[in-house]
């Protein structure tokens, strides 16, 4: 248990360092949104900077920022309208989280299935498919894949394409939702019309984004399965007459699963950030696109800093959870580290 405790404690200095980097990068941005807002009004801008405490030393501002986030989950106010950016960022974070979750689920399920089958039936057509997935997912630019998907979906299948999370006509049906995880919450509340609408709007971006974890998981699963199947215990088990499927499912897969869980956790965080390209192609209202469209393009520094900090924090927390899960799956870890 000490390992778990230490692992949790390490997270805090890590978060602090992350916030420093985020804040420094956002601070280094040439120009900011206020240049446009106070165009032709240098005095007004100076007064505004003073009122917002932007002329304070870097460390003071960073300290204030960290304190605000740690105590009130406050992410400072926008340079464009002085409104807190936090609520919107959290809302967008949930959108991206849902997209990532779907992509991840799709990727892991397909990846596992194809990986196992291609390890069990090497050189079969399935194995070829596995290789295509494994190589394609890491070689094809995701935004290009997204564009090709759009062309095909819209032109060939006449797939209704939308940049909403659900059809606006259903607005009254989601008004009482507690979260912005519309897909999950509509399922939990059994509002199937909302669920169907959310799923339809999520489908294309989720498919595009899923190719990345699909590639990694396929590759990992296949390699891990082959590795385990080559080990003595598996050969022995088979020699003893256990049916191949039993060996695979009960022993080989279980051992192979450990590295797969790790990689899934790592992938999740990468995907949350990587989703920015997918979100941009599909105009999906997620956090990554918001950071780029609202933050970087308009130079709204708090949006950039807050957005990246939220993604990094989610990433760190997910990795922490995975590491803790690891302890549960593989008891050896407890003593080892």
């Amino acid at each position: 248990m000490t390992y778990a405790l230490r692992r949790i404690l390490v997270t805090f200095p890590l978060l602090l360092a992350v916030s420093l980097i985020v804040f420094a990068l956002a601070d280094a941005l040439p120009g900011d949104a206020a240049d446009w807002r106070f165009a032709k009004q240098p005095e007004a801008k100076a007064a505004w900077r003073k009122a917002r405490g932007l002329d304070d030393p870097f460390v003071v501002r960073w300290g204030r920022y960290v304190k605000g986030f740690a105590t009130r989950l406050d992410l400072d106010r926008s340079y464009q309208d002085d409104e807190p950016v936090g609520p919107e960022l959290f809302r967008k974070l949930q959108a991206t989280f849902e997209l990532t979750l779907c992509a991840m689920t799709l990727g892991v399920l397909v990846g596992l299935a194809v990986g196992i089958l291609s390890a069990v039936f090497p050189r079969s057509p399935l194995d070829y498919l596995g290789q295509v997935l494994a190589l394609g997912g890491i070689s094809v630019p995701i935004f290009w894949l997204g564009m090709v998907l759009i062309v095909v979906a819209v032109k060939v299948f006449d797939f209704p394409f939308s940049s909403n999370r659900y059809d606006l006509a259903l607005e009254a049906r989601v008004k009482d939702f507690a979260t912005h995880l519309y897909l999950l919450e509509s399922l939990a509340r059994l509002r199937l019309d909302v669920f169907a609408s959310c799923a339809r709007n999520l489908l294309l971006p989720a498919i595009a984004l899923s190719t990345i974890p699909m590639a990694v998981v396929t590759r990992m699963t296949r390699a891990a399965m082959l590795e385990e199947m080559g080990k003595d215990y598996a050969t022995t088990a088979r020699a003893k007459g256990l049916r191949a499927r039993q060996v695979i499912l009960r022993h080989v897969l279980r051992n192979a699963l450990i590295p797969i869980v790790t990689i899934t956790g790592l992938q999740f965080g990468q995907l949350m950030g990587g989703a920015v390209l997918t979100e941009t192609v599909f105009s999906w209202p997620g956090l990554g696109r918001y950071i780029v469209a609202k933050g970087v393009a308009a130079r709204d520094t708090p949006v950039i800093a807050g957005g990246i900090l939220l993604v990094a924090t989610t990433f760190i927390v997910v990795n922490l959870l995975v590491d803790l899960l690891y302890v549960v799956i593989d008891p050896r870890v407890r003593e080892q580290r």
Partner: protein
Amino acid sequence: MRIRGFRARAGLLLLPVPLLLLCLGCEGRKKAAEAKPPLDVTKLLPQAPDDPQPKDGGIFIWGRSGDATLLDPADVTDGESVMVVTNLFDTLVAFRRGSTEIEPSLATDWSTSPDKLVWTFRLREGVTFHDKSPLDAAAVVFSFERQRDPTHSARRATSVFSYYQNNFKSLEKVEAVDEHTVRFTLKEPYAPFLAALALFNCSIVSPRAFQSEGKDADGRYAYNFAQRPVGSGPFVFESWEKDSRITLRANKDYWGGAPRIDKLIFKPIVDAQTRLKELEAGSIHGMDNPELRDLEIIQRNPDLRLLGSPGINVCYLAMHTGKKPFDDVRVRQAVAFAIDKRRIIAAAYNNIGKPAVSMCPETMVGFDRTLIDRTRDVGRAKRLLAEAGYADGFKTSLSYPASQRTYLPDPPTTAIQIQQDLKEVGIEVELRKRDWSALIKETQNGEHEMCLMGWMADIFDPDNFLYVLLDRENAVEGTANNLSFYKGDRVHELLKEAQASYDIHRRERLYKEAQEILFEEAPTVPLVTVPDFRVVRKDVRGYTIYPAGGEFFRHVSFAR
């Protein structure tokens, strides 16, 4: 290796997949492409038909390219905020539907003193704000005072009120004569005054809303008006979900007649193609800023109606006349001779839009119709450069915005065409892509050499183009709108004289002379004027483009 070796073959399998998919996609497209009628922009109507017996009710969703930044009518500067504000508030005078003419609104009639310095407005009686408080002379004074007085309580620490700063320099005071009469006194004659009063920043705001939550420590009203605006307009503010939607509901008690629709939603959809997709799917009912290259697709679609009106805007190339070599008029003329406006319009505007001759668009009164534009002449440009001592050309830079604007739908292509045009006369141009706010900062400080910019009418008056963009009073580093930093004395005299005159014929003569000088001096090269386009679904009735800007949805309804 036994197993891994054929990864190569599998890799090659990757190839046909996207190829196949794309071919499938192209197949679908071809059919639609066969019948392709040429698009004649001049035939487009600015208005969806009115319905004699419109249907009541419904939610109307307007797709646009961005979210509003704030909703305080006096403090907004961006088009996305303006189009919301124009539906929430009333002004004393307003633009007639679909026109640039001024008509009575909150003021039923008005009179001026002989010297045109005192303007007296009679207010419509019985008008109330959305919070039920009365709209009286005191509210009008309040709405202007808070913009004038830097210590006013209804002003946030961050308020700028730049439209007031720019347009009402000549306003001395606003007083309530009685409950329904207001008097404006000017320091000097200002011809565009009445037109300026129709502008959104002159919206009348509810003083009671401001006062409703008391004052904070530094004596300002605590009420956050920019997030929860209260006006008297045809729509009432309901909610704002950032970057997602702004919802307004119909004001059933509107003095001008309640809107037909129940709700009006503004939905930001950044990407124009996605916006169009949503419109085609029916999840929004109208949109602005379609991609120019999508117009043919829109016109072929039986579900959609493409509306157009000649835009009041100009996209131009400015050369910093305070810097070498652009201080030499021959160099500027050489640039003007080198630029091929027709090719720019073909490449970057899908052949839509008219070449601009003057910085005053031809859709604006006061445009000098006698000007004849230069035609591209590489030889002449080179001769002019040689005369100026640049026979071997020179190196310079061009700053341009990274994001598109209405008058500049494809900034990189426009910039590249200019670069290529100038390359052919020996001028080597380094392209400098800038984010919008960075570009504003760079150009207002005069840090650029050449820049690609544009202007849309705020006030329907030639002064709004010529004085704002080319007068030396607007060429002050740090706050410049005159991005060529042209400081011609004669032009300044002419523009100031025109500003003080109320005689339209005299003003036209003055502006004509100014435009002729500016054409010869070429501190800027006007490039193009782009029409305004909107798209609505076929069942939308009563929507009209307002050429002077803003969106007004009170007449919109759905077909029965």
